[in-house]
């Protein structure tokens, strides 16, 4: 039993609905049939009584004159309907005298003249008893096993000569009842045929969203779903509100999740930044001393060519170390002038050679009309890095697009390029040092860019759109001094 209640709503709602509809249809049909049966029986009794009274009036004078044959003709008349007549005919009619002896019967073989009615057998003894106790003028109705008996007095002007009994076989109204019952059953089936599919559809419609929701909640418990919750339920009922709440919950969870990830990455990048800055400082101090010592050593003179060559080699190596370390040691606090529109022109000029090499055109769309309060050196470096990356990643003969927008309290820089997308595994470590899969390049460009943006209090986001890779940088910039 329990199992039935554990069923999915997808089945339970339509099943319960169907069961209720079927029960209702059955109950109504049963009541209808009982009523029809009763009505038919009532009709039969009434018409029997009516026939009996009509005949009794005519049998009266015949009985009074002991005219057996005339009485026979009168009571026999209702039985002589033409074949195929749909009327309900009595099976037997009996005229009884005052002592309940058969005065005449339509079936004289079964009920010969002058015998006591109770001697006929069958239901007749019971009928005789019922008649004996019935009031003088009453119409008596007796329901036997196979037959229905209606007895009316043969009386006129208060004088009772006997009783007329109209006997119907119960079979006569069964065909009628069945035809009524069939009609009722057909109507019931039609109603069922109409209601059951509607109920099924409605049940599925009710249960469908609930099932989707339950499934969705299950997937939440297993981990945050990547897909948004089902939202194809347009109505504002309790279910609709449940969907809204669920959607809100899922979105909140997703936001939280993303924030956590973002935070972890920032933390990591910040830790790497501090580490590398510390290492760079530690290296830079002795390096400066070594380079000064080498310089002094060269200036003293008197060295042979071979020594000088070696020193020069050491000096170049140390310079390379210094450059690398310098690149890692992002110094945002450098004094610099503010970034102005002319810096964008400079950038185009600087990138022209590279762009030509890759046959890429650069389109810069800017709404800067005056300087913004951001260090020109750093912003130029950001733009330079992003655009160089874009040029290198872009398909040949394509266009690299860049927008620079001054908004209230911020400068928004975006670069777009088509071409090979950034692979998923690279994306998550994009701003870490030496993360790129590029064959040439230091691997520090985007890291440096990130460090600069971070130090300027801004944000940088890389996104893959359909055909395009977009970098978006938002830098807070107060009113220009």
């Amino acid at each position, binding site marked *: 039993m329990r199992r039935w209640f554990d069923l999915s709503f997808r089945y339970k709602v339509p099943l319960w609905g169907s069961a209720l509809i079927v029960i209702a249809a059955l109950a109504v049909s049963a009541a209808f049939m009982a009523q029809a049966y009763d009505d038919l029986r009532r009709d039969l009794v009434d018409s029997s009584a009516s*026939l009996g009274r009509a005949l009794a009036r005519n049998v009266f004078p015949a009985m009074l004159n002991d005219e*057996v*044959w005339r009485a026979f003709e009168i009571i026999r008349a209702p039985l002589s309907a033409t074949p195929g*007549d749909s*009327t309900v005919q009595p099976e037997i009619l009996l005229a009884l005298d005052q002592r309940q002896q058969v005065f005449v019967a339509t079936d*004289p073989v079964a009920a010969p003249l002058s015998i006591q009615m109770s001697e006929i057998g069958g239901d007749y003894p019971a009928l005789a008893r019922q008649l004996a106790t019935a009031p003088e003028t009453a119409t008596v109705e007796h329901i036997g096993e196979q037959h229905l008996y209606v007895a009316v007095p043969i009386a006129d002007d208060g004088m009772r000569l006997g009783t007329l009994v109209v006997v119907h076989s119960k079979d006569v109204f069964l065909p009628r009842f069945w035809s009524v019952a069939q009609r009722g059953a057909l109507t019931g089936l039609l109603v069922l045929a109409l209601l059951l599919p509607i109920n099924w559809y409605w049940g599925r419609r009710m249960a469908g969203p609930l099932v989707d929701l339950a499934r969705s909640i299950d997937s939440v418990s297993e981990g945050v779903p990547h897909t948004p919750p089902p939202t194809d339920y347009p109505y504002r009922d309790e279910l609709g509100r449940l969907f809204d709440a669920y959607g809100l919950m899922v979105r909140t969870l997703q936001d939280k999740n993303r924030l956590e990830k973002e935070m972890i990455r920032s933390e990591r990048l910040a830790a790497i930044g501090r580490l590398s800055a510390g290492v760079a400082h530690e290296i830079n101090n002795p390096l400066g001393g070594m380079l000064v010592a080498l310089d002094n050593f060269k200036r003293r003179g008197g060295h042979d060519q071979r020594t000088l060559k070696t020193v020069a080699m050491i000096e170049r190596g140390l310079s390379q170390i210094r450059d690398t370390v310098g690149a890692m040691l992002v110094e945002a606090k450098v004094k610099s002038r503010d970034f102005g529109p002319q810096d964008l022109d400079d950038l185009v000029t600087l990138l022209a050679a590279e762009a030509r090499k890759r046959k890429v055109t650069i389109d810069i769309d800017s709404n800067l009309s005056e300087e913004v309060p951001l260090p020109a050196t750093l912003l130029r470096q950001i733009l330079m890095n992003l655009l160089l990356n874009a040029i290198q990643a872009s398909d040949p003969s394509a266009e690299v697009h860049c927008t620079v927008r001054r908004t209230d309290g911020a400068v928004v820089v975006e670069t777009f390029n088509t071409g090979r997308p950034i692979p998923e595994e690279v994306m998550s470590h994009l701003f870490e040092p030496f993360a790129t899969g590029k064959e040439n390049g230091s691997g520090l460009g985007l890291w440096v860019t990130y460090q600069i943006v971070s130090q300027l209090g801004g944000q940088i986001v890389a996104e893959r759109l359909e055909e395009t890779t977009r970098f978006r940088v938002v830098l807070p910039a107060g009113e220009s001094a």
Partner: protein
Amino acid sequence: MKNHENSRTESARWAWNGAVGTENGCRARSAGLPWRNKTGKKLIWGYELVTATRMKTWIAAVLVLLFGALAPDAGAAHQAPVRIGLTATFPNDQYRALEEWRRYLERRLERPVEFVRRDSYAEAMDLLRLQKIDFAWVCEYPFVFFKGQMKLLAIPLYRGRPYYQSYLIVPAGDRSTRSITQLEGTVFAYADPYSNTGYLSPRFDLQQAGYDPQQFFRKTIFTWSHRKTVEAVASGLAQGGAVSSHVWETLSTVKPELTAATRVVTTSAEFGFPPFVARTGIGAAVFDDLQRVLLTMSEDEDGRRLLRHLNLDGFMRGDPALYDRVDSMIRSFSAQ
């Protein structure tokens, strides 16, 4: 056994007939017969589980059929009609044949003819004696009984002779009865207390066999028609009955399924055929005209066709002596 055929029955019958007789002027004209027929057709008994309206109509129709509330007498035409009483001497439900016969008589007599139908011989005899009708086709029993109160007009010829018999019939299922004496204690159907073949003859046979016909049967019923006697025996209502041989034989050709349900046990001696009689005081011209027409009926084609319908061969003048056997039977009873 109680005998129901007591004097009450017969006297009640007579009293009733007498009462009816006074209002005969309002009863059926023979021309009304087809009308009855029509009504009869409408009366399809049996009933439906239906409305009171239909039931009322139906009751009304029953009353019409039973009491014959017929059209009033239209009154004499410019020439007084010849009125002929018909009884159950023949299977008298051949309404169309009767109507044709009436028209034939009108044509031959060149004056209106009315048929006045009565179920019982007594009624017809009353009408005749009250001069409500001019002629009647009655049983030979009342003719002999009321000797001198009517004139013999003509006697039909059945199978070429003016004779017929009484048949004792039992239901076809009764294979054992060989004689009327075996029917003691049964229900017996008579046609009419003034019928010879349907009443007097079987009673005479019982009397001759040493039984009292009043006590012999458990119950006797009058059907007022030979044909209905056949029906009563065929349906099993009566275990025996006495009928005119002419009626039984005629029925056996027009309605063989009815006679097949009965079996003829014995046939009586021959009696003179039921005669056409005239009231006393009938005009000699009318008497002669009708007698001539009847006697010559077999001479034209229409007449022969009508006679065939009636299962007769013609008419003869006849002699009251034909009915002497009936006379002696009556005397035998009154001698008791």
